[in-house]
């Protein structure tokens, strides 16, 4: 098989100059067999099983990087929601399980392990309640553990009691990590229509229908899409823009497929999915916001941004679906504010408000992600923001999420550095009006007609 010079140089350029990389290879490990009436034994089994299965993960990922010349940035682990595993123990404090996961992740050399998770969209089991109560301490005491909670689905509606409780957990997690700018909340996310094979943290976990172990891949590549659009004639119409994004997404997805297959083969496990989300990093040029501005808005957040993002997300999905039969996870475009240099600038310049961001989440692949608000934001306001986001997901049959950080001691306009991929948070003003009565009512918002599809 021969390739033209143009094809070969395009690939080399993507890797050398346009920061094409595989964002995450995530090994999913089922922990169902670790359940034990004794919490200490559960922890022991969890620790042993994670290490047993993930011992060679980093080595395998590095060897693939080496052999194929494609950087694999993060190696991660996703596990069965801990609330399900801990149920048999009846324990009220599940922090020891978080510590066991953290220790295992450190031992095998991965930077994050996701799965301190519960599903409460219809109600709490005792174990779900114990997990929720343990989250603030668990996130403060561990470095690598990520936590996620399913609060709503299109089928079940929104559990508003859980929304309020989650908002309280967010506040408590921020307070316990006040010295680090509320860092605990950067590892905590809630979902509507949670995805059970998501390879990206903080929402990574593996659900009930997943196999014993599974290798999922998250590709990235906003830099590649950005460069392709930058080369496009500025007068090109939007069909040409969509086509360019689609073609580029195809190529990026194929790299994910190659790495996923190869990693699964070398580990001897099942290849799960490629998540084709464009995931920005704080590095210059690796920005979803830059893409939106190249499509044609002055600044991200200006009128037209939601339309541009809708075009982007849809074209990415179409290119990805053509490239792989195993597209899954969240797949689309992420808009984590603090992790994207272009979005940080848009917030600083007053172009991107929280309200506009919420509108954008109706067409992006996840939701309000890495948003900083003042530390003294009331619980009812945070619960209101979450409820709005859950409602968008529920009605539109899509996944939405909220990862919000009430930064202790910070007010609107202040800056907080979380470091690394988490980037720089600019505290945004959620306004002075709240939803005290709505969130105080409790109960649930019933499932919409869209949920009754049988």
């Amino acid at each position, binding site marked *: *098989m021969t390739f033209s010079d143009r094809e070969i140089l395009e*690939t080399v350029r993507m890797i050398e100059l346009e920061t094409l990389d595989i964002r995450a290879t995530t090994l999913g490990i089922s922990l169902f067999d670790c359940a034990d009436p004794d919490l200490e034994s559960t922890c022991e089994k969890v620790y*042993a099983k994670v290490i047993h299965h993930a011992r060679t993960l980093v080595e395998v990922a590095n060897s693939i990087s080496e052999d*194929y010349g494609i950087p694999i940035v993060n190696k991660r682990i996703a596990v069965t929601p801990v609330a399900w595993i801990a149920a048999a123990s009846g324990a009220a404090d599940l922090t020891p399980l978080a510590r066991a996961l953290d220790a295992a992740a450190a031992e095998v050399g991965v930077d994050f392990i996701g799965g301190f998770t519960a599903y409460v969209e219809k109600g709490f089991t005792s174990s779900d309640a114990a997990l929720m109560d343990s989250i603030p301490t668990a996130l403060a005491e561990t470095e690598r553990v990520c936590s996620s909670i399913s609060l709503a689905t299109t089928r079940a509606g929104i559990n508003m009691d859980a929304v309020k409780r989650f908002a309280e957990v967010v506040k408590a997690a921020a307070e316990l990590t006040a010295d680090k700018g509320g860092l605990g909340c950067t590892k905590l996310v809630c979902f509507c229509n949670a995805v059970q094979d998501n390879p990206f943290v903080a929402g990574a976990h593996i659900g009930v229908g997943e196999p014993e172990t599974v290798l999922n891949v998250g590709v990235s590549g906003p830099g590649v899409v950005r460069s392709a659009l930058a080369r496009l004639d500025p007068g090109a119409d939007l069909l040409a823009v969509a086509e360019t994004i689609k073609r580029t997404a195809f190529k990026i997805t194929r790299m994910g497929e190659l790495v996923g297959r190869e990693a699964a083969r070398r580990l*001897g496990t099942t290849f799960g999915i490629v998540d084709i989300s464009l995931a920005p990093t704080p590095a210059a040029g690796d920005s979803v916001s830059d893409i939106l501005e190249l499509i044609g808005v002055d600044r991200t957040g200006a009128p037209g941004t939601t339309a541009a993002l809708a075009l982007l997300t849809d074209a990415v999905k179409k290119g990805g679906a053509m490239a792989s039969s195993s597209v899954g996870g969240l797949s689309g475009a992420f808009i984590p504010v603090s992790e994207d240099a272009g979005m940080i600038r848009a917030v600083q310049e007053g172009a991107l408000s929280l309200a506009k961001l919420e509108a954008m989440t109706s067409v992006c692949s996840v939701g309000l992600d890495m948003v900083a608000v003042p530390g003294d934001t009331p619980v009812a306001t945070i619960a209101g923001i979450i409820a709005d986001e859950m409602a968008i997901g529920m009605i539109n049959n899509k996944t939405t999420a909220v990862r919000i950080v009430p930064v202790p001691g910070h007010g609107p306009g202040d800056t907080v550095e979380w470091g690394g991929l988490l980037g720089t948070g600019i505290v945004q003003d959620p306004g002075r009006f709240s939803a005290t009565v709505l969130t105080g009512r409790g109960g649930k918002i019933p499932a919409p007609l869209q949920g009754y599809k049988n």
Partner: protein
Amino acid sequence: MARRFLTVEDIRLAPGHEIVVDAGTVVTPQALEAAEAAGIAIRSPDGAWREPPPDRGPDAERRMASLPHMPEPEANPSLASTAIVTAVGRNRPGVMAEITAAIAEEQGNIHDVSQKVVEGFYHMILTVELRPEASFDQFKTRLECMGNPDDFAVRVMNERVFRFMHRV
């Protein structure tokens, strides 16, 4: 199904000085320590216990075998060890000879060459078939160590990358 785990609690409750576990049982690190401290030997049916290879689940193998066809060589495994070598640098006499000599020393068989010089800089693309028993790693290291930032740079990539990216 074989016993999944042996924990400290199991060691504590063990009646004798020996525990026999299934070949696939995972003994936790804490249980290993506890057993050693208590002088209890852990055995599997066919001798001393050793950590088993990870059990990836009953359908892992089948799922790998049934992945949909991708643009992979079907009946020609030799293609699996084809390398695409790209070199970029300032043009001077002997550059191509140096690179191709190194490829020859590694017994690589050049299938295709393309070279252009633009404004004193050249770029060269070579498709090289490696011997079936050759190490891709060794070939890559050898070639990528050539040149220097002021002269030329070589990059070696597996042909699979291009096949996945550019062929439907």
